[in-house]
């Protein structure tokens, strides 16, 4: 039993059944859902960017709003993936018992959890793209290199989807997600370079931030949106890949422990 719990998840095209199911539901409310996802990051980006930005002539060679735009692409990706994996995922797993229904068909729990992860990452990609699109429309994107950000945004989404699904598989109720947001997501917003450069922080906070996935997403997004190849790109990618793989793996393990007992 223990060996079965920890076996490597099987990757199968069947995860698309789950992805597609969620996509069909999303399609019914696509426009309000997109606008809802866009409103919050836009308010921060434009409010702080132009408001606070007026007091700061430049940040690292960029206007503050352009500096913030790169951070917002990443934080918005993080938020969308986390909300989808946790609140929506928990509804489907625990409240609506959608996962249980799917498991009676020739689909495995590995397929379901990985399908949910890829779905949350896809939704996060849409969010990130939407912010990127608005930033481009405002003239804040300075290079077509920004397009290479799309797979990175998807990868970032997958990393946060994996982490969120771990929470989903462990939580007895929705209440626990609040802790995750307070203890994990909010600190990431503040120490990962979304609003200001990380080197403004004391060393120990910088070290903490360096271990968090959002830091690496931002470190890739900011130069790419401004026409530069990021320093240490392979390292940043590696951290994101590691978070995505370990996160999704643990999510599958915890889901097995919860549902296949």
């Amino acid at each position, binding site marked *: 039993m223990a060996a079965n719990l920890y076996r490597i998840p099987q990757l199968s095209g069947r995860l698309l059944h789950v992805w597609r199911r969620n996509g069909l539901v999303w399609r019914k409310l696509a426009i309000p859902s997109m606008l809802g996802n866009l409103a919050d990051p836009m308010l921060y980006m434009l409010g702080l960017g132009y408001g606070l930005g007026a007091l700061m002539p430049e940040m690292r060679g960029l206007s503050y709003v352009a500096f913030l735009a790169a951070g917002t692409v990443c934080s918005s990706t993080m938020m969308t993936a986390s909300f989808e994996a946790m609140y929506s995922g928990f509804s489907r797993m625990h409240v609506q018992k959608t996962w249980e229904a799917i498991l009676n*068909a020739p689909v*495995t729990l590995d397929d379901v959890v990985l399908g949910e992860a890829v779905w949350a990452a896809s939704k996060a990609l849409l969010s990130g793209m939407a912010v990127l699109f608005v930033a481009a429309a405002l003239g804040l994107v300075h290079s077509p290199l920004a397009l290479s950000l799309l797979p990175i945004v998807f990868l970032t989404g997958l990393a946060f989807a994996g982490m969120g699904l771990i929470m989903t598989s462990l939580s007895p109720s929705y209440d626990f997600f609040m802790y995750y947001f307070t203890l994990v997501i909010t600190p990431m917003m503040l120490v990962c370079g979304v609003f200001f450069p990380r080197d403004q922080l004391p060393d120990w906070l910088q070290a903490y931030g360096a271990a968090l996935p959002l830091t690496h997403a931002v470190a890739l997004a900011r130069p790419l949106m401004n026409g530069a190849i990021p320093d240490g790109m392979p390292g940043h990618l590696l951290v994101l890949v590691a978070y995505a793989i370990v996160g999704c793996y643990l999510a599958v393990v915890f889901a097995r422990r919860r549902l296949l007992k």
Partner: protein
Amino acid sequence: MGELEVRGLRKRYGDREVVAGVDLTLQPGVCFGLLGPNGAGKTTTLRLCLGLTDPDGGEITMLGHRIPQDARTARARIGVVPQMDNLDPDFSVRENLVVYGRYFGYAKAEIERRLPSLLEFAGLNARADAKIQTLSGGMKRRLTLARALVNDPDLIFLDEPTTGLDPQARHLIWERLRQLLGQGKTILLTTHFMDEAERLCHELAIMDRGRIIAHGAPRTLIERNIEPQVVEVYGDGAESWADARGMQLSERCEKTGETVFCYTADAQPIVQDLDRQPALRYLHRPANLEDVFLKLTGRELRD
């Protein structure tokens, strides 16, 4: 070779052995009923057969596939009606069927082709575009049943299919299940409604504390396990009547609260005696499956 063969099945949670050595054989075309009080291990047995949890011991072969190793492949030929409704609330009636068919890998056109007969079977033609939340309990059950047929399964699992339904809705479900048996499907259902088991099932197994304690056709179970006649006695003084007269006149006499149950091969002496007791009311009836069930599993509550 049966559609489902289970040998020596065991499953333990902590110290508790929930399934403690179960053997089952389902022949094709049979309706097999698994009866038992709450917590007897019925649902766990179904989950084990579907490969949704690994057994601690024993062997399962379903439609020629070894479970749990080939469970996913086997499930392609299985239909499942779970105990709790898990219809997809984000979709309409029609969409529920289409989306569920997708999990089996069917193309949309293929499912669309089957849709009319599934809706017809569920009696939901007129409600095809209704939201799930607007359906009654009976409609939801019928839709769940139709959903379980989306892959035209050979073997159908039903976990307490009529719990919580009104009599009209139950009778309709029973009629549908008979229709499926008529088409040659094999059915495994769990229930704790004895009338349901008696009406539908060709073969029954009574399960208690993880074990099968009796097995056979409904009539055989009754003949083999219990006296053929029952007299139920109610009213003030039923208990003292039982002590004074009932015990001698019947082969077995059980007192539960206000009611006395007398089991016997010949009820005439009891009935004659009771006719002389104006304070007591009684009901004389042939023994049924519920009597067998209560005799074998006891009268205390199981929660």
